[in-house]
C-alpha cells in the first residue's frame, strides 16, 4: 500500500537529552495507527517532529516519498497536509467556531470565504457542532472544543491527521463523544496516527499499534498481537499496568 509518511533513523535531542532514538516507522494510506506508551516515552515528540513543530536532530521524514527535511517544500505547505489535534484543543480564542475552521482555508489554501465556510459547515456537521458556529471557544465545553478542533483540522483536507492524546484533558463524560467522532473518521478511511491511553480505542479501531518506551519503538504490530500476545516483556508490563487500572 502507498506510504504517506515514512520516518527513517529519526533522532531527537533536547540538549543532552536523547528523547527519540533511531525511530523507523511508516503510515500507509487509510491506516489507523495508535501509539501507546507511558508518559515521557517520547510519543508527543515523535508526533511533533512529524509535522515539524519540533525539528528532528537527524534522520529523514518522507512524505509520499519526498524528503521533507531537504527543504523542497516550505514548512507551512507541508504542515497543511498533515492535520494535528492537540490534547489542549488549542482553538483560536479570538475566533468563533466557524472562523476557527475558515481561517486556515482562506489564509493557507487561498480558498474564497464562501466556499471555505461551506467546507467548514460540512465538517462541523460531521462532528455534530453545526449549531454552535457562532460560539466563541470559551462558551463551549471541552468535548465540544475538541470536536471543533477536529473539524478545523479536517477543513484543511489533510492527507493524514495526527492526534496527541485527544481525550486526556477531557472530563470522563466527554471522552465518548470525541472517540465516537474519531471512530467515524477511521471508518471513513481517513489516515490517522493517534497517541492515546484509550486502550479500547486502540484495540477496536487501530490497524496497527505501536508501543514506545524511552524513545524507542519497542513493538509495532496488529492490535491482536500487541494486546493478546506481545513479544516484548516491556510491552507486557506496560499493558498489565494500564489494563489493571
Amino acid at each position, binding site marked *: 500500500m502507498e506510504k504517506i509518511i515514512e520516518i527513517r533513523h529519526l533522532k531527537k535531542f533536547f540538549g543532552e537529552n536523547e528523547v527519540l532514538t533511531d525511530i523507523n516507522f511508516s503510515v500507509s494510506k487509510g491506516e489507523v495507527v495508535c501509539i501507546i506508551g507511558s508518559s515521557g516515552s517520547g510519543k508527543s515528540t515523535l508526533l511533533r517532529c512529524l*509535522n515539524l*513543530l519540533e*525539528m528532528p536532530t537527524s534522520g529523514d521524514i518522507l512524505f509520499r516519498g519526498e524528503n521533507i527535511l531537504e527543504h523542497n517544500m516550505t*514548512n*507551512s*505547505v*507541508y*504542515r*497543511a*497536509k*498533515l*492535520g*494535528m489535534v*492537540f490534547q*489542549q*484543543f*488549542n*482553538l*483560536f*480564542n*479570538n*475566533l468563533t467556531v466557524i472562523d476557527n475552521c475558515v*481561517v*486556515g482555508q482562506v*489564509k*493557507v*489554501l487561498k480558498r474564497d470565504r464562501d466556499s471555505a465556510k461551506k467546507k467548514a459547515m460540512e465538517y462541523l456537521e460531521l462532528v455534530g457542532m453545526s449549531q454552535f458556529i457562532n460560539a*466563541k471557544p*470559551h462558551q463551549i465545553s471541552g468535548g465540544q472544543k475538541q470536536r471543533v*478542533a477536529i473539524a*478545523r*483540522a479536517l477543513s*484543511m483536507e489533510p492527507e493524514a491527521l495526527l492526534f496527541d492524546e485527544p481525550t486526556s*484533558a477531557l472530563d470522563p463524560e466527554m471522552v465518548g463523544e470525541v472517540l465516537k467522532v474519531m471512530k467515524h473518521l477511521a471508518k471513513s478511511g481517513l489516515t490517522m496516527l493517534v497517541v492515546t491511553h484509550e486502550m479500547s480505542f486502540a484495540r477496536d479501531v487501530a490497524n496497527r499499534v505501536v508501543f514506545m518506551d524511552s524513545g524507542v519503538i519497542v513493538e509495532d504490530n496488529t492490535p491482536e498481537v500487541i494486546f493478546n500476545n506481545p513479544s516484548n516483556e516491556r510491552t507486557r508490563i506496560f499493558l498489565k499496568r494500564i489494563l489493571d487500572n
Partner: protein
Amino acid sequence: MAVDATSPFFDWVFYILQNYWPLFLRGATVTLIISLTGTIVGFALGILIGVVRTIPVDQNSHFIKKLGLKVVNFLLLCYIEIFRGTPMMVQAMVIFYGAAMVYNIHLSPLYAGIFIVSINTGAYMAEIVRGGIISIDKGQFEAAHSIGMTHAQTMLNIVLPQAIRNILPALSNEFVINIKDTSVLNVISVTELFFMSKSAAGNNFRYFEVFLVTCVIYFIMTFTVTRILRYFEVRLEGPSAYTIHGSQTVPEAEIKIMGREKK
C-alpha cells in the same frame, strides 16, 4: 469685576475663570490633542516593535535573517532603554533644540510635542506589546502552524488580536499618563495647559489660584478619559479578568492576566 492684591481667594478664582477661560480651553485642547495623537502613534509604534522583537529564529533560519534580526533587535533595545531611562522633559529639550541645531529643522512646538510623546509612548508600549504577545499560550501558535499558517499570518490573525485585547488597559493607562506628562512640554513652549496656566498666573502673580483651576481641569480630563475607556474595556472583556499594575516604572509588571482557559 475688579480685583486687587487684597481681594479674597474666591474673587480671584472667579476673576481668573472669567477672564482666562479661553486660554484654559485652548491649553486643555492642545494637551488632549498631543496626548491622544501621541498615544495612538506610540501604540502603533509599540505594536510594530513588539512584533519585530518576537520574530522567532531557529537553527534552520538563514544566517542573514539571524544577523539582521540581531542588529535590528539591538537597535530597538537601545531605543527602548534610552527613552525609558531618561526624563521626557530632557528628551524634549534635546530633540527640539537638537533638530534645530544639528539638522537645521525648525519644528513647530506642537509637532515636536506630538513627536516626542509618540516616541516616548512607543518605547513603553513596545515592551507592553511584547509582554502581551509572549503571554499568549504557545498552543495558539502551534495550532496555527499545524494548519500551515506562517508566523506572520499567525501573528496577524490569531495572536495580535488576543494580545491587543489583553493590553488595552495598559494602553488607556498610558493615555492618562500622557495627559499629565505633556505638561513637561512647556519647556519647549508648547501651548498646552500647563504653559497657558503659567502665562495666566504670571500676568496676575496669582499662582495658587490659577494652578488650582489647572489642577481641577487636569483631573476632570483624566477622570473622564479613565471612565470612558473603562466602559469600553468592560464591554470587550471576555473570559479573562485583568489585574493592572499600571506604572511606567515597572512596565514588565503591567499586565497580569488571570483566569485564562479553563483546563
